[in-house]
Every structure is written in C-alpha cells, then in structure tokens.
C-alpha cells in the first residue's frame, strides 16, 4: 500500500512529456506546461540559436515555439511523440524567421551591438587566459559562419544530429522525410563543412606539426 502511495506522489512531480501535454490540452494545466518548458527550453533554444546564427533571435524564436505549442494545444495528438511535435514547431518557426530575415536583410545596429556586448561579456566572464578565450571565440565564430552558409535543409539535419543528438530515424520523423534522405543530407552537410572549414583545419594541422618539431 505504501509503495502505491509513493508511486502516486512521485507521479505528481515526474510525468512523461506526452502525459504532461495531454493535461495541457485537456485541462489547461499550467504546472504541466511549466514542466515541459523547463525540460525543453535549453534544447529548443540551442536549435534555434544554431539555425539562425543569432543568440537574440534564437531566444525569441524559442519562446515563440512554446507560445505556439500552448496556443495550438488542441492540435496535439496523443499518438504522436511530444518531442517530434515540438521539434517540428521550432524548426518551422526557424524557417519562417530565416525567410523573413532574407526579405528584410536586417542588420540593425542594436543587433550588432547586442552581439558585441554578449561576446565581450563572454570574454570577461572566463577565468582562462584572454588569448585562449579569444582563440575559442574565433573558432566558434568560424563554425557559426560555416553553418550559416549551409543550405537550411542540410543545416537542420546537422544541428539535430550533431548538437541535439537525435538519431537519424528520429530526424526523419521530425522532418517527415525518409531516413535515407536524412543520411544523404548529413553526408552533404559534413562534406560542405569540411570545405568551408578547410583553411582552419589545415592551419591547425600545420600548427600541430610545427609544434612537434
């Protein structure tokens, strides 16, 4: 009897995503929604930031994804995996944002200033040597620029596989394409990145070789 009681108490605090979303849909359960946001915000924020190459926009779009999740809660089907549903919402919003940015060709000085401040804060927040931090930031910037040069369909697959650690089969479900297509896009993404990052890769190899002399 006590085991059953403890299980019931535990179920109050750790329900599955699907059950939580069901409660959101059927009962407008705010606590269940808060749990979903808490669990998924970091991953969705990471996806949006890497797809858009911009931390501010990434955060905005990630928040928009949860707003949309809530506002369209009646559309959620319990047979679908919650994660697949949420990834799809976030990716579609990223695509919308990329199209919007392309149309406006927006380069607000506040965006550039905001990003510069974030980079500066990142610089001073570290305890490591400034030179090490600067090199790390340069590497990150090169990777970001290279990713932004990839076509969106390749970038999506790469971000989901490499950074968010989804399996190819899961990515296929999210994007509603065959698994073989996912792997082909990933192959193409990796090959294009190898070319885009080539000068940096070669420079690293030369540095390591000369350091060993």
């Amino acid at each position, binding site marked *: 009897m006590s085991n*059953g*009681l403890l299980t019931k108490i535990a179920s109050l605090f750790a329900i599955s995503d699907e059950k939580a979303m069901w409660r959101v849909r059927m009962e407008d359960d705010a606590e269940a929604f808060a749990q979903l946001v808490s669990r998924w915000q*970091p991953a969705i924020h990471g996806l949006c*930031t*890497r797809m858009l190459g911009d*931390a501010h926009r990434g955060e905005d779009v990630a928040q928009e994804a949860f707003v949309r999740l809530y506002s369209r809660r009646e559309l959620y089907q319990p047979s679908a995996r919650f994660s697949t549903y949420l990834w799809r919402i976030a990716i579609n919003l990223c695509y919308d944002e990329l199209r919007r940015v392309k149309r406006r060709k927006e380069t607000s000085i506040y965006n550039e200033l905001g990003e510069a401040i974030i980079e500066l804060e990142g610089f001073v927040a570290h305890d490591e040597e400034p030179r090490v931090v600067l090199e790390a930031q340069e590497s990150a910037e090169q990777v970001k620029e290279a990713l932004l040069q990839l076509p969106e369909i390749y970038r999506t697959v790469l971000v989901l596989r490499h950074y968010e650690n989804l399996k190819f089969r899961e990515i296929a479900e999210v994007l509603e394409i065959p698994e073989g297509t996912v*792997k082909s896009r990933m192959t193409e993404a990796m090959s294009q990145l190898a070319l885009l*990052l080539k000068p940096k890769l070669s420079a690293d190899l030369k540095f390591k070789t000369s350091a060993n002399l």
Partner: protein
Amino acid sequence: MKHPAKEDLVSLLYEELPSDTQSELKAHLQNCAECQAQMTEWQQVQGKLRAWSVPRPASRSVPLPRLASWAAAALFMICVGFAVGRFTGPTVDAETIRASLEPQLRQALAQELNAAREADRRQVITMLTDIEEQRMADYTQLRKDLETVAVIADEKLTHTERVLRQANLFAQGPSR
C-alpha cells in the same frame, strides 16, 4: 575495391550502425586509404563543431531546488499524516490524503510561477523605461546642439551683413 556508401560512413561516424555492419566497415577502413581519409576529415569537422557551444538560457520556470523542497515538504506531511492517522484515529486512505494536499500544492506552485512572471515583467518595464529615458536625454542634447548651431550661424550672418554694409559705404566714397 568496392567502397561503402558515404551514408554508411556517416552512420558509422555517429555510431548508428548495427554491430556486424560496423565491424565490416571498420575492417574496410583499415585497408582503404580513401575511405579512411574521408572519415578523418569528418572527424576533424566534428571536432570543430564542438567549438561552438551555446550557453543555456536562464530557466524561467520554478527553480528545481524550490520544487524539490516543496516535494520534500509534501512527502514529509504525507508521512506525518499517515503516521498520526495510523496510531490515533481510524485509518485514512492515501487518496484522501493526496486529495487534501493537492489544492495547497497547486496553489503554492501557481504562486511561485506568478511571482517569477511578475519579476520578469518588472525587469522588462525597467529596461524599457531606461531606454526611453536615454532616448529623451539624447533628443534633448541634440536639440540643444542644434540651437547652439543656429545661434552661432545667426551671429555670423549678422556680422557678415555689417561687414558688407561697411564695404559698400567705402566703395561709394564720402559724399560731398
């Protein structure tokens, strides 16, 4: 030599192949410089990709330590209630205890969420107020600067006019 499809190589790179296929591919890589070079290149790309880490945003939901403390408090109250009921009055079933505690827990969680939302809202309002104040200060300064320029320009024009009048008088010469 028959090379594996690149899609299989990328599956191997991300460890998504069944173990028998994986062994076959690894055996091929040991004997094929071309495929090994491809794998090495992609492994370097993987290494580079790790350079870009995205800091996780500050969570806006109820912080876990608070939730944990509420959970611990709820568990303690349930255990106390259970023990008291067991040794004193008639037995009370678990459902009744849960039902009686649930509204209080829900209310407490809702209050925490509202407090967090209110704090966020106040922070946004403060930021917007600061931006507006800065904008007004910039506008006021700009207006002052423009007025100064206008005054200086006016003085210069008046001076120039005076000089021109004097030059004109000299040019006409003294009248007899």
